[in-house]
């Protein structure tokens, strides 16, 4: 599956285990962001989401004006401040699928051989439906950092507080980098700031969540392992 504009960069020295790296490109600027592995919901929204989004994006553009493939590709790229860079083949394939599903109709080729598409009533309704639906973030049930914390708690492999510290340090560093990028951004590029703010608020929410988990840990009577009789290793500093 190809991912336009949002390049997956696997294997770039993971700070924490198995992060997903993405490069968000806006015009001449790029931001390497590692979408924390716990954000499995980012994968549908940023990975599959981009592919799904081509269909919805084209449909919305067609609601505004009819158009041919290359023109629609350019319109979509410009609407996203070049954050999305589309493969023309993907645009044509998507337009054909829109037609197959009755959301758009094609007209006979013009003198240059270009096929113009226009939206159907069904397509118009589908675009409105898409706008009306919230984006599904519910896939976050099983995520790595939660698992790691719970495993730390029951296995004694590492102190849960240490797991929190490491995670917090890593996210704080990201938050500092994002903030630096924001303060560097002299001109107001709406799309760029939109992505940056999204990353900043997500990181911030993550830190708040870790803070809350830490409080809950403090309220536990002890970090007593429930799997086997194994006690936490001696090197761990356990604060009752």
């Amino acid at each position, binding site marked *: 599956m190809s991912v336009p504009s949002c390049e997956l960069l696997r294997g770039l020295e993971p700070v924490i285990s198995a992060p997903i790296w993405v490069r968000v490109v806006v015009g*001449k*600027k*790029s*931001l*390497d962001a590692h979408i924390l592995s716990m954000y499995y919901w980012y994968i549908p929204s940023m990975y599959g989401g981009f592919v799904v989004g081509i269909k919805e994006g084209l449909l919305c553009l067609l609601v505004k004006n009819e158009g041919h493939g290359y023109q629609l590709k350019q319109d979509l790229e410009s609407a996203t401040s070049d954050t999305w860079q589309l493969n023309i083949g993907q645009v044509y394939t998507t337009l054909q699928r829109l037609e197959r599903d009755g959301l758009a109709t094609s007209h006979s080729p013009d003198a240059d051989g270009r096929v113009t598409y226009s939206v159907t009533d069904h397509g118009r309704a589908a675009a409105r439906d898409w706008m009306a639906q919230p984006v599904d973030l519910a896939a976050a049930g099983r995520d790595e950092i939660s698992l790691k914390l719970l495993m730390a708690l029951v296995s004694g492999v590492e102190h849960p507080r240490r797991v929190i*510290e490491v995670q*917090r*340090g*890593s996210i*704080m*560093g990201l*938050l*500092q*980098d*994002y*903030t*630096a*990028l924001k*303060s*560097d*951004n*002299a001109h107001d590029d709406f799309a760029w700031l939109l992505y940056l703010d999204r990353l*900043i608020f997500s*990181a*911030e929410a993550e*830190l*708040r969540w870790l*803070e809350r988990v830490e409080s809950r840990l403090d309220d536990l009577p002890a970090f007593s392992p429930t799997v086997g009789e194994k006690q936490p290793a001696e090197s761990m500093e356990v*604060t009752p």
Partner: protein
Amino acid sequence: MTEPILSMRRLGKTHGVGAQRVDALVSVDLDLLPGELVAITGRSGSGKTTLLNMAGALDEPTTGEVIVDGQNLATLSKQELARVRRVSVGYVFQQFNLLPSLTAAENISLPLELDGMKPALARELAEKSLDEVELGGMADRYPDQLSGGEQQRVAIARGLVGPRSVLLADEPTGALDEATSESILKLIRSRCDAGAAALLVTHEPAYAAWADRVVRLRDGRVEGISVRSKTPSSTADLS
């Protein structure tokens, strides 16, 4: 190598004795270089404000030492400490702490005049400092004629006037809305980029994130430090 402008060595603070003994701060080492913004973060009671107060000679450490501008605070007399507070370090608090009966410029020039500076020169420095926080036209306004954000800008101008180059800020955005808070942090950041140094106490991660280094305290100890990358990936591409 650049000398730190503020240096804390094995700094400790203990309140009470025996069963009542509380270790507010335990052996903290921290250097602040010119041009650097360092954030101190942690929960309530983790020792953030204690650290800041000792950095600014408002409180004495139980153990360890604080060196400001090459002077070991422990070796200074009361008068000399008072001078450090007037001349070397500037404070910004959550409550802006401006004197209501003085204008913006007078609030800034007063500590300089108290230190023996000629009023005309103090006024000139105050105006320059107000310019730097983009309040050039408001020198003769009284605090109650300024918004909260503007008052905090005056406090920052006062904190970094003339010879002062270390700003100690304790939750400086606590009383401000989010957009104004961001503009205050941007200002502190830009003053540091221009060569000042600042120690910022905050419990808000998004505000701490403006710093070069974020030091997290827990129960009076440094739990972790996170450092900003020197070259965010976009900076090289900015035209």
